[in-house]
């Protein structure tokens, strides 16, 4: 049985910048360490990074099973490490797992644990820590990462620096799933989250959930070369977008996230500031219809609803242009295996009118929207209403309370607004929303399609990249044509920082340099 070496792409493919720098690109760590260096000169040590960030609350805790927003993730990645990191180009590269091998069928995996990494307490990282950390998210747990690990049947220690993972269903995306931010590595038996003990670059000084977090650099060299450069990191919770911008403008913080698209152009005019835009990776904004209920079970009506939305107008007016146009599925435009050849459904009032007539539907179409679904949902709904009116379709727009929206409206009302977040892989993105028919509790369009399910499962173990890409393209096509999802926009991530902060690169996944700006950045 031939073992296939799954060296990660960033270790094998030389991109232009790596060639220029003459990076050896042999070992993973070499590739990794050269990355920040490419941005602007070599990283320097020192300084205090002050972050003003949204995405947390006084209810935050450091237990990874409760992470749901940016701030706890950013904090966590200062203190701990994950098993796998996603590089800026979107590939899975080793973090605490140095490398891995997979057998054909993708059910048996062998992961090599990085040697010589120690926790703050001085303990050396070994296989038991990894197994304990992964098992926190398996079995009876409320961990959101549980679903990512559902197919894992066994995690076995081979030796102190090697674990074997066996899966019931093969999935080549396992390393991506293991890069999930919930899956940090803690020492075996660790339970006291108020006293973090991690392998990260920093140690905690102060944590007041909802107010601020302070960390200082660990003495000695961090195990990742060129990272962990700041002496201290101070993170402030700033929920108000205007307050965040002001704090950056007045120099009280060095970096902010979630810049208000409406004021981004103003910020960009300031010569001391820089806007970092990560396109096609943010939330997917959509209206979803239950296609097993009338009138949405009528395919022609759904076509009319898809042709009748002016996506560009929504992107330009509601999101001030800081979004990509959606194409009726949740795959982001910059996601690996996004099908660029699939035709974009245009705004075509005539076609919408044609399909609406053909459908013969006379029943009222009611769309429920709320700012509780996502900011801009109401405005988007209004543009939708206008653009449908031009096609002679009357949309009854109903604004509902943001309070309890996810309990009372989403999944219950036949046509409503929703957002879907960015997932680590295309498989995960499609599986969570569309796979498994009515048994999937998150299938908010009640989508059922046998070909889709079969293709998706087959793609999980397809080692030929080209074939795999074609399979995912078919999946995107099937959803766009058959599901009740009208996905009209994919949000850009918008960060802003002072020009002296380096390393805030466009990431392959989340904002703030994949939530690792504290670890990756430095001051020029």
């Amino acid at each position, binding site marked *: 049985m031939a073992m296939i070496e799954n060296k990660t792409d960033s270790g094998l493919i030389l991109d232009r910048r790596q060639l220029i720098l003459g990076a050896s690109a042999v070992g993973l760590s070499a590739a990794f360490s050269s990355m920040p260096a490419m941005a602007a000169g070599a990283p320097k040590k020192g300084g205090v990074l002050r972050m003003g960030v949204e995405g947390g609350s006084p209810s935050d*805790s450091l237990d990874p099973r409760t992470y749901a927003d940016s701030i706890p993730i950013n904090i966590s990645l200062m203190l701990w490490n994950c098993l796998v990191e996603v590089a800026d180009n979107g590939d899975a590269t080793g973090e605490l797992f140095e490398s891995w091998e997979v057998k054909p069928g993708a059910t048996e995996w062998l992961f090599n644990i990085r040697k010589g990494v120690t926790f703050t307490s001085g303990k050396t990282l070994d296989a038991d820590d990894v197994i304990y950390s992964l098992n926190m998210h398996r079995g009876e747990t409320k961990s959101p990462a549980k679903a990512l690990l559902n197919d894992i049947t066994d995690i076995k220690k081979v030796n102190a620096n090697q674990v074997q993972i066996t899966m019931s269903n093969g999935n080549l995306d396992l390393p991506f799933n293991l890069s999930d931010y919930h899956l940090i590595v803690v020492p075996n038996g660790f339970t006291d989250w108020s006293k973090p003990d991690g392998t990260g670059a920093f140690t905690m000084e102060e944590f007041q*959930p909802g107010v601020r977090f302070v960390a200082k650099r660990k003495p000695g060299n961090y195990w990742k070369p060129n990272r962990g450069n700041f002496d201290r990191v101070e993170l402030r919770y700033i929920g*108000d977008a205007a307050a965040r911008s002001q704090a950056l403008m007045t120099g009280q913080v060095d970096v902010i996230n979630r810049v208000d698209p409406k004021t981004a152009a103003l910020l960009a005019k300031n010569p001391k500031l820089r806007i970092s835009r990560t396109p096609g990776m943010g939330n997917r904004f959509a209206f979803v219809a239950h296609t097993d209920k009338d009138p949405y079970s009528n395919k022609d009506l759904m076509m009319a609803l898809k042709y009748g939305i002016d996506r560009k107008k929504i992107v330009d007016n509601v999101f001030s242009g800081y979004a990509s146009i959606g194409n009726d599925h949740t795959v982001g435009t910059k996601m690996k295996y996004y099908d660029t050849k699939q035709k974009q459904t245009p705004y075509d009032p005539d076609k919408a009118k044609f399909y609406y007539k053909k459908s013969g539907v006379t029943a009222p179409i009611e769309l429920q929207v709320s700012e509780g679904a996502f900011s801009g949902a109401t405005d988007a709904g209004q543009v939708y209403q206008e653009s449908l009116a031009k096609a002679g379709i009357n949309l009854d727009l109903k604004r509902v309370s943001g309070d309890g929206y996810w309990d009372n409206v989403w999944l219950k009302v036949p046509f409503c607004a929703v957002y879907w977040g960015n997932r680590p892989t295309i498989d995960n993105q499609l599986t969570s929303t569309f796979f498994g028919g009515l048994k999937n509790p998150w299938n908010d369009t009640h989508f059922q399609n046998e070909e889709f399910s079969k293709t998706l499962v087959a793609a999980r173990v397809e080692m030929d990249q080209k074939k795999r890409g074609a399979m995912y393209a078919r999946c995107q096509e099937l959803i766009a044509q058959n599901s009740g999802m009208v996905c009209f926009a994919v949000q850009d991530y918008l960060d802003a920082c002072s020009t002296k902060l380096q390393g805030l690169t466009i990431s392959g996944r989340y904002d703030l340099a994949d939530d690792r700006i504290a670890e990756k950045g430095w001051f020029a």
Partner: protein
Amino acid sequence: MAKLILNRLLLGVLTLFAVSILIFVCTQILPGDVASAVLGQGATPEALVIFRKELGLDVPAYLRYIHWLTGALHGDLGVALTNKRVIVDEVLPRLGNTLFLAGYAALIAIPVAVGLGIFSAINEGKLSDKLANIVTLTAISLPEFFIAYLLIIFMAVDVDWFPSLSTVYKGMPFSERVYQTTLPAITLTLLVAAHMLRMTRSSVLSVMSTPYIEMAFLKGAKRGRVIVRHALPNAAAPIITVVALNLAYLVVGVVVIEAVFVYPGLGQLMVDAVSKRDVPVIQACGLVFAMVFVTLNTLADILVILVNPRLRHKR
């Protein structure tokens, strides 16, 4: 008189008790539950069931109320549902911050407003009276966040005198804390000054038309002396009431200011707790706010009884 004061105190305690029931009932009828609010849109039904059980949401409401009330009476407000932190530890520093800001604002606002009110009364109808009125009325007519942003633009962005973020934390030097909270304190002052100024002015003026004031004038006293010496003590009752009301507002009504200046006060904590459906935290904040309000009002009532002998006797 002692009986009168005791009555007021008892009434205060009763009000608090009634409020505690109200708070508990109201938090029970908030739409949505904490489990789904915490776990977000990404929660699986399975995770929700496990989390709800963990939170003890399966116990009947009246039992939870009794448990909560007895805890609160012993100074134990329970632990937050969401992150298991002890609520008292969370609330006390926040309350400290809010009281600090309110106290700072009151230190500026009360002397300024009451002083200006008396000054306006002395100079009734003159330009200075009109000017004081116009300025304070303008300030109270603008939305609070607007005043806050104006101050930030002029005093933080343009001239860089004060920070736009009011960063405070434990162990911060007192002078630094004062510096950091100056802008929100000025904003609050502008918000409450008009109310106190006008009440002071009008209650002084209303006393001015009484016969004994006329008598004082006839005896040849100057206008300023008549107001301060004869009118003010008798106009004190409404002024004390309006000052107490505004003090209470400074503590419980500053949520917007806290958000604009990112000030870690109690209002902000409560808003965040509401969005996460963290019921024990909401209840704790509600109770603390009610206590502040009831205490200040009771204090004002007692003070009024003390300064106004007529109230001590039944008519």
